[in-house]
């Protein structure tokens, strides 16, 4: 007889809380970078500084919105894992990963093209622009690595550890998607 003497209540696992801690820390990271962006903006008579063109609306916003939609399949994957439906869990993660990798491919090319036009070292505006955008892409890369690792684990079946991992990684993607929207919103504010 172990814990049978006490009734058990349902509660979110420690793994989820651990991921929430990571999300809190990274949220402050992004908040500091976004605050830096507006700090520079408020101190500059002209924005963007040095006659640099503000970011394009469509090519900045649309990929971000596509990425944000991947929160839906990731959350569905978490629900499916909790219900023990392995095939659906894998399918949802793969579906999300296709969009996420497509986003990364497009954005990495776009990032390089923008740098060819005007360098990160041009002025403070380009310094914070490319750092903020690069940090966001870096977090999407980390998310993709999480998802590849999860798929590898799920190839061996479902258990409590992998169910918790699916939930935690789904929440990471919610954070990464919201961060992307916040970053894109910040960068596009230069058009206002």
């Amino acid at each position, binding site marked *: 007889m172990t814990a049978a003497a006490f009734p058990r209540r349902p509660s979110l696992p420690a793994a989820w809380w651990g991921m929430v801690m990571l999300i809190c820390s990274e949220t402050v990271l992004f908040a500091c970078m976004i605050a830096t962006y507006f700090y520079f903006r*408020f101190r500059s*008579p002209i924005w963007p500084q040095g006659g640099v063109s503000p970011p394009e609306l469509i090519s900045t916003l649309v990929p971000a919105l596509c990425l944000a939609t991947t929160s839906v399949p990731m959350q569905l994957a978490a629900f499916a894992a909790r219900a023990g439906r392995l095939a659906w869990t894998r399918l949802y993660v793969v579906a999300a990963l296709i969009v996420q990798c497509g986003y990364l491919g497009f954005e990495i090319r776009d990032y390089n093209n923008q740098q060819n036009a005007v360098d990160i070292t041009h002025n403070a505006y380009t310094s914070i622009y490319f750092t903020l955008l690069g940090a966001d892409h870096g977090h999407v890369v980390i998310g993709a690595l999480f998802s590849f690792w999860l798929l590898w684990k799920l190839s061996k079946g479902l258990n409590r550890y992998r169910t918790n991992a699916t939930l935690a990684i789904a929440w990471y993607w919610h954070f990464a998607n919201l961060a992307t929207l916040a970053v894109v919103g910040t960068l596009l504010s230069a058009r206002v």
Partner: protein
Amino acid sequence: MKLRHLEILQWGGLFLGGAIFACAHVLGYGIVLAACNPANATFGIDHHVWEGALMASAAVVVLIAEAASVLVLYGTRDLAGGYEAEPPLSRIRYFAITAALANVLFLSIVLLELFGSLFNVACRQA
């Protein structure tokens, strides 16, 4: 009062005041930065109006949070053992006590910021 209502009031009272203080503090300083720097030539922010509105609203929200905590204290006044009784009611009363103190402090800070913003010349260097 029902347990579910007490729970909602307790968590609201505990977090709402602090959250709104943090937002008002950050936004308030942000308004100063925006109003007292070159970009304000474009924005045209009236410092006193914006700060007054922000801090007054924040003060109202903190008062609501404090009211929630006081309601919980009232609703658990007959709990034998007080905050040392069995959970969850003892935990609810405990956090209402802590929130009642915290919200008074947050309100004080918000009011000090309100008066400081209104009664100082905008953007004069310290």
